[in-house]
């Protein structure tokens, strides 16, 4: 594993919000084709870490590399253009817009020819077609009407739309922040399956979660975050859930990975 170049890597990230140090020299590595879970207590800095890795937050110090090359994300748009797709904890979907609109939000397709270039006309039919295709590939076709407003969907379906969007456009990395936190058992299961589907399509996934059983079920490796930095990296085979909780809470001391 470690001879491979990480798809996404961070070293010594620091981010302070006034007196709070959200990131305190955090390291991070994501390798090709894996599901990497990031776990940690509330306030450990998980969200801040993935925000830094997706351009939503500019760290005060530290470096980020993609496929070995140094990058500095200016904003989420920039990270996206480099192939990093993120589903934020606060779902970045627009409730009143339709499913297809949401999938293509910020990168709408225009009609070919003069209609698109001069009149800036959207190619709604094509966006609908691609959205339908994407959702059916991920087995989300119970979402019937691709124009249906997202707010009329259940929590799991919304999460599905957000994941589908990231899977459709992410070429390098898909990051999911607490995707199952607000979901019921059945809906969580579906999202976990989605995560596997995305990985099986060759996209590495970063999964931030609180939920130990979920993490141990889908993750290939587990990054444990504590007090703004990485405390350890374990695998579901090498450690038990109790070990993970121990490291997370500081009850178990480990050498920093």
């Amino acid at each position, binding site marked *: 594993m470690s001879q491979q170049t990480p798809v996404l890597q961070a070293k010594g990230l620091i981010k302070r919000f006034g007196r709070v140090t959200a990131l305190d020299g955090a390291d991070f590595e994501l390798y090709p084709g894996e599901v990497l879970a990031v776990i940690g207590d509330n306030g450990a800095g998980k969200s801040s870490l993935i925000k830094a890795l997706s351009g939503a937050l500019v760290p005060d110090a530290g470096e980020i590399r993609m496929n070995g090359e140094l990058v500095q994300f200016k904003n989420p748009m920039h990270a996206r253009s480099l192939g990093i797709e993120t589903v934020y904890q606060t*779902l*970045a979907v627009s409730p009143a*817009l339709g499913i297809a609109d949401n999938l293509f*939000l910020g990168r709408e397709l225009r009609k070919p020819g003069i209609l698109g270039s001069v009149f800036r006309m959207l190619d709604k039919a094509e966006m609908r077609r691609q959205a339908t295709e994407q959702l059916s590939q991920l087995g989300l*076709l119970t979402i019937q009407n691709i124009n249906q*407003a997202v*707010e009329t969907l*259940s929590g799991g379906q919304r999460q599905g739309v957000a994941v589908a969007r990231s899977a459709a456009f992410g070429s390098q990395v898909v990051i999911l922040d607490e995707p199952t936190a607000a979901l019921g058992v059945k809906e969580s299961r579906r999202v976990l399956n989605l995560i596997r589907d995305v990985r099986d399509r060759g996209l590495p996934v970063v999964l931030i979660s609180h939920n130990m059983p979920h993490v141990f079920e889908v993750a290939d490796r587990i990054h444990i975050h504590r007090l703004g930095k990485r405390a350890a990296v374990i695998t579901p085979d090498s450690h038990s859930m109790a070990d993970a909780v121990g490291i997370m809470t500081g009850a178990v001391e480990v050498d920093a990975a």
Partner: protein
Amino acid sequence: MTEHTNQGSQPPSSQADHERVTESVGGSIAMRSDEVLDWPRRIHRFFHANPTAAPAIVLIAAVLAFSLIAGERFLTPFNLSLVLQQVTIIGALGVAQTLIIMTMGIDLSVGAIMVLSSVVMGRLAVDFGLPPSMALVLGLVCGAACGAINGTLVTRIKLPPFIVTLGTWNIFFSLNLWYSNSQTIRSQDIESIAPLLQWAGNSFTLFGARITFGSLMMIALVGLVWYALNWTAWGRHVYATGDDKDAAELAGIRTQRVLMSVYIVAGVICGLAAWLMIGRIGSVSPQVGTMSNLDSITAVVIGGTSLFGGRGSIVGTLIGALVVGIFRNGLALAGVDVLWQEFTVGLLILVAVGIDQWIRRASA
């Protein structure tokens, strides 16, 4: 795979089969589970999916009602075209207002921008002898500049739109009094020196209806902005920004730029409304249009655009303006005192906001 958007009872399996069929055939069959919805919910869904439906129903009902109440003078092409003329300026300002309100803002300065722009047009053409077309363009630029000031204060200084435009309303109105020396530019002077400025007042007769160019321009404006909102990426971004700004931002939309563009476009539309107003009243007066700030908001609200952003339509605003126009006209023809016209408009606003709340509630 059998998850349903309605949280009601589990539909029978025959329906699930039916769904699977429609799925493979059509792909985008709407509201498949309507059969199991009760009536209030179906109505709710309908209004939720069609924001212009409620104002349109009110408009049709109002026309029918006044045809009965106000006598045969009401339902004539001439009278209805008169209503259209009366709502032309509010309709245009309403378009600008809709854009702003859709982004969860409010613009109290639209009327002041319009009057200031009209004074700029009139003064430059009549007093300074600029070519009328140039005066017109500079009037529009004035509108754009006013919009840019509002936009800058909202996006850069991050002041609430209500406060910003409350301030600029007064500022623009004072500038207007200063620049016009509080004097009206007479219609005859404009007619002889800059007839272009009165162009929107030209009209033709069609089946007894008197249609002004200004009314047609306003309708064209509605069409243009409707297109921009529904068929361009910019429009999607305006909706998304108003709907949930943070979500739009995380989806990669530069929401501050979108907001700025909305305020500038609104300013230009106010400039356009200035041109329509000169066409309608002939002269340029620094004192007119002072009520139009609030009237434009009324049209937007009655037109079904939500004051909470992200939901609404330009066509609805036109309908909203027409509803107000029809009520005023119909009540006047029925011999009802003006004060009851205002009373009725007030009721309409409250009903419209109530309906909006109901539509927003319990979205699923």
